[in-house]
């Protein structure tokens, strides 16, 4: 194993971490298993490709996550709030429907052809890492991806509102009783979650090929990660995302055949051992 492989693992892991932590947040705060998360990510990547054609990557870097955060507002006020009394599974099925609608909208807005986006100007070169050339863009991806997640963790750990988020995701009723304004916090979290999906999409655009299947594939892995980490545990999701990202990349070098199955086997083994998942999640879901 060399440093290049470690960096590749981190690059894959940082996208997964962004997506999985977003999913864990929205589940923890709003009790929603959001099947539209992958579609938002795909939408973001296609939108990035379109914006790059007309303007440049940095415009997309700002505009796309914000657009996705606005999609979060639509989700909150159009679905989650009016139908707050419906069961978790009902809302999950509705988001599954919304995923299809959003995918379809993405295709009619941006077409179905696969796209390739090249890395933006200052980041399009390579850098020597212990003698091996390495694309600068991937270092940028790792920095921004893991940096955002680190900021998220710092927010959760060291601020008042972050404390409230942790409380609500563990015991929503108790947190509300203690005076946490769960409504206001809910809006922030839904927007943050979809915004993170948007950020993952914009970061992925110059790194992966943009195609119509990209959302589904990563959604399922992210869902696996959230369950693996313990539903309702944001920290658990982050750690599992890094484990799975690492497993996949390192495995693809050493044992490619087994790697694609590894996350699922891992999930089944973990659930056999700890039905509540790795992290300290919610007890009453």
């Amino acid at each position: 194993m060399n440093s290049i492989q470690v960096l590749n693992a981190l690059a894959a892991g940082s996208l997964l971490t962004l997506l999985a932590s977003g999913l864990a947040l929205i589940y923890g705060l709003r009790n929603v298993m959001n099947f539209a998360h992958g579609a938002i990510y795909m939408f973001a990547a296609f939108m990035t490709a379109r914006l790059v054609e007309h303007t440049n990557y940095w415009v997309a870097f700002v505009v796309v996550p914000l657009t996705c955060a606005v999609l979060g507002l639509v989700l909150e006020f159009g679905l989650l709030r009016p139908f707050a009394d419906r069961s978790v599974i009902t809302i999950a099925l509705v988001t599954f429907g919304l995923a299809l609608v959003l995918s379809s909208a993405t295709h009619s807005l941006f077409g179905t052809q696969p796209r390739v986006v090249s890395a933006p100007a200052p980041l399009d070169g390579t850098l020597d890492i212990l003698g091996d050339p390495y694309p600068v863009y991937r270092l940028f991806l790792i920095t921004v991806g893991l940096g955002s997640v680190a900021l998220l963790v710092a927010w959760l750990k060291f601020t008042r509102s972050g404390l409230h988020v942790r409380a609500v995701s563990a015991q929503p009723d108790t947190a509300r009783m203690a005076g946490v304004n769960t409504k206001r916090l809910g809006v922030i979290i839904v927007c943050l979650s979809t915004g993170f999906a948007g950020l993952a999409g914009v970061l992925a655009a110059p790194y992966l090929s943009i195609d119509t299947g990209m959302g589904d594939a990563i959604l399922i892995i992210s869902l696996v990660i959230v369950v693996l980490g313990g539903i309702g545990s944001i920290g658990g999701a982050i750690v599992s995302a890094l484990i799975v990202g690492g497993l996949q990349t390192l495995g693809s070098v050493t044992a490619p055949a087994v790697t694609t199955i590894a996350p699922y086997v891992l999930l089944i083994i973990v659930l056999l051992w700890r039905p509540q998942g790795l992290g300290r999640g919610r007890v009453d879901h």
Partner: protein
Amino acid sequence: MSAKQITSGPTKPSVVGSRRESTLRQRPAHVLRLLAILAVIVAGFAVPSLVTNPYRLTLLVDGLTLGLLALSLGFLVTQLGLFSFGAGAFFGVTAYGFAFASIEWEWSTTASALFGVGASLAVAAMVGAVFVRVKALPFAMVTLAFSVMMMQFVHQSAFRDKLGGDSGLLAMPQGGFLGVSQEDLLTPDGIWPLVWSVVVVCVAAMFLLGRSRFGRTLRGIRENDERMRYCGFNTYWPKLAAFTISAGLAAVAGLMQILFHGFATPGLFSFGFTGNGIVAALVGGIGSVYGAIIGGVLFTQAQSWLGTSGNLMLYQGAITALVVLFLPRGLAGLISEVSKKALGRIKRGGSDASN
């Protein structure tokens, strides 16, 4: 807590009592209903002589097959409140099992079919032993994960010569099956009587199972697993049995599909495929055994109408979301609602089919 006991205590016996009473009093309505069901069953066998266009009939066969998958999903939801997002896996395992046995071992159609369904049941009992331990939402996720895992498995390059990789397996039946000749299996009007009989048997079996003591035990578990355990019930084995039965239905659906089309592809394990079954079950009506079949048929029809417009996903997604939110009991619920209003005096015991 005390409140729950107050409400649930007296209502249950009274429902049972009123049902028994009403069946006695409403005997003519009951007989009429039975006759209507018999008429539908008999009429079903006549469908090929009415729908002569082979493409249309093929769509109907596919619709029934999807309906069986929807029935498998609906059974688990109604009886245990569990959504299996990986029901397609058991459909797929049967298809692959059948294809593998008939290609690799050159087994007869009947032997391959038994192998395919048996393999599916064995796999279901094995993975179910783990899956039924978790709650509803993780259950949905692990079944999904299992399905995707199977897809990755058949994709493996190491098994490409055995399982066909991306392109899957093409298996022509080696001989007839249950009185249907080898040639007839491949034509829609030839296979129709078989598929229709299977559908009738499965629907009837699910209906009876829902009303049996086993069904009541399962619904007790769905309502309150913990309380059932405190009352001294073992809830694990009934749950595992229900999971395996549900997988068995998906396996039968998979068998019909491989007998008719001869294809087993990795796509059967995709979430999209199970998603079709979920949409069919929701549209037809969760909680109704015949609703699942209606849902399956309608879904395949709609797929062919809307598919040409290129916006299939848009409609499928919008319909799913709207049905779940505004028509939670699906078309079957709507039908029973409407018929209840039309025949104001007909009692409710018979209209909600599976409960």
